[in-house]
């Protein structure tokens, strides 16, 4: 693992030597986020988001464990126990807002992380496993976030639980018994609330486990970089510490500023007022939408309105799950040997003018009421979404003529020395370039 020039850990203090011989934990940290991990020298701020996602996971686990000390998972008292946290528990309001907004920010960070991966084709060999594990983490996150949203047992919690478990009811033959089994009843009630709580507590630790695999898989080929050119020599890399601890630290500071702005000044802006009404099984809120981070997928779910071979309901459910499951096949759908979107003119056009607007439309329509023109817009965007991944991407990767790549990361950063001794940069997309010395 890692590159031959990676610095070896040399403990100096006797205590660290003692520890290193028996449990080489400091060595592990040194090789993961210390000077022992050589990282491409040209990473942009888009490479901050892995660390940020890890930070969000820790934030959610810490605040979540604290909230669990005060929350009661019982349908009779759950809503009141959340209000008890807000009003009575010391700093409870802050801890709850930190957890609720922490979920939103976790998704912001992870979406940027995913689209970084999509633009720079971080899913390509030899990093397929990192991508696949990442998609697994994303699916686990969605399940965890959904179940967490049910716990306050407000109106949106209740009806969210009912609608999402209703998705499983669309499956032919086993659907309805499956839904009843998932809920432990015919509608969400105490049994559902308790199991959601139990799983909401468990899954973050499962996520943490998969994150360890994700990072383990990352450290075998090493980090990708904005040129997509693999590391060739020591001059292409810098040690993670202090270079990227500093860069990630700065990114973390910016992240925390925006996050704290929401926690302290806009704590309910990302939530729904209806969830401050206790769950009522007899009345559905007029405008029921999931949390914002599910909107694109919710739009895909609602885009199917007429029966065609299969019932519309089933199409919607299949499409929604397929929208994420198709990411598992991405490493084999995109056959271009060039990774970075910076050197792929056609891919780049479809990314910026196809996929990104498509996601924006799905995002907007998912949060809009289920009426025209949003239904039609969702349908067009859903069609493009699947076309993009299943048709356009494979074809583009075959017909596209990529732009010339720099020989190495160092060349991309410093420019290529010419025969006459002058330096001539040939960077194409200059965002990572520095003035030649």
């Amino acid at each position: 693992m890692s590159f031959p020039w990676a610095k070896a850990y040399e403990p100096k203090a006797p205590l660290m030597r003692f520890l290193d011989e028996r449990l080489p934990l400091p060595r592990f940290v040194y090789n993961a986020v210390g000077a022992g991990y050589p990282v491409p020298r040209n990473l942009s701020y888009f490479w901050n988001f892995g660390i940020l996602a890890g930070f969000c996971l820790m934030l959610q686990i810490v605040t979540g464990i604290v909230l669990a000390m005060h929350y009661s998972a019982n349908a009779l008292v759950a809503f009141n126990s959340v209000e008890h946290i807000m009003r009575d528990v010391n700093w409870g309001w802050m801890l709850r807002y930190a957890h609720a907004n922490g979920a939103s920010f976790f998704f912001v960070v992870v979406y940027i992380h995913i689209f970084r991966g999509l633009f720079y084709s971080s899913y390509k060999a030899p990093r397929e496993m990192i991508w696949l594990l990442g998609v697994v983490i994303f699916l686990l996150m969605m399940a965890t976030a959904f179940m967490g949203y049910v716990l306050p047992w407000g109106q949106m919690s209740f009806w969210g639980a009912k609608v999402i478990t209703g998705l499983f009811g669309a499956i032919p033959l086993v659907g309805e018994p499956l839904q009843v089994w998932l809920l432990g009843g015919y509608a969400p009630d105490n049994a559902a609330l308790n199991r959601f709580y139990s799983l909401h507590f468990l899954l973050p630790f499962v996520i943490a486990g998969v994150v360890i695999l994700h990072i383990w898989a990352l450290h075998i080929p090493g980090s990708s970089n904005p040129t997509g050119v693999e590391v060739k020599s020591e001059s292409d890399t810098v040690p993670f510490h202090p270079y990227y601890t500093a860069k990630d630290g700065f990114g973390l500071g910016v992240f925390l500023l925006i996050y704290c702005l929401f926690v302290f000044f806009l704590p309910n802006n990302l939530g729904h007022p209806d969830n401050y009404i206790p769950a009522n099984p007899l009345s559905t809120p007029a405008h029921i939408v999931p949390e914002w981070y599910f909107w694109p997928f919710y739009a895909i779910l609602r885009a199917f309105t007429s029966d065609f071979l299969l019932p519309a309901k089933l199409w919607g459910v299949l499409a929604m799950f397929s929208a994420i499951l198709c990411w598992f096949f991405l490493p084999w759908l995109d056959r271009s040997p060039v990774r970075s979107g910076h050197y792929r003119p056609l891919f780049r056009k479809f990314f910026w003018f196809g996929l990104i607007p498509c996601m924006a439309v799905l995002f907007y329509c998912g949060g809009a009421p289920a009426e025209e023109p949003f239904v039609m817009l969702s349908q067009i965007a859903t069609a493009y979404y699947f076309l993009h991944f299943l048709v356009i991407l494979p074809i583009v990767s075959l017909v596209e003529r990529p732009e010339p790549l720099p020989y190495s990361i160092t060349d991309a950063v410093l420019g290529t020395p010419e025969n006459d001794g002058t330096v001539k940069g040939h960077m194409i997309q200059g965002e990572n370039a520095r003035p030649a010395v």
Partner: protein
Amino acid sequence: MASTTGAAPDDAMTTVGNPGDGDAGTHPVRRRDFINIAAVSAAGVGGLAVLYPLVSQMAPSKDVLAESTTELDLSAIQPGQAIKAVFRKQPVFVRNLTPQEIATANEVAVDSLRDPETLTERTKEGHGNWLITMGVCTHLGCVPLGAGEGENKGEFGGYFCPCHGSHYDTAGRIRKGPAPANLVVPEYEFTSDTTVVIG
């Protein structure tokens, strides 16, 4: 990073310095050192500030603190009787002492006690017959017997803790057994002749 070609900060501190670091030769404190210390300090202070609410949330919440007074009506308690009330989710014994019990308590030589206190010190002036103590054994926190009708009052006619055999006398003072101190007298005051507010 001030320079793409410069050495790592650790090295930079001992070498002459990078462009933009100012005149390193004459000023021992350099810009990069300052940034480093400022960044680490800000992160450290921020980390500590976050710890405070995480620790504080375990302290009694506002609804628990709101339970910290209990008002009792004593009019139905006859001499020789006792009741168990609840103060902060713990039992409180309120006992109307008989003249004989008061006399027994006053006969004891205070100096001979493990936790020397007179009955007068443990009651309020003008309400000398009302012994109000926590019903929590000072040994390990069990509820002593003796407040209920027909319960074992121990060898000294007060309270008896069945967990580890502590005997308390009619003033609630420890007389025999492992408990280190007398039954605790909570803060209370009489708001009328028959009403008492504990806490």
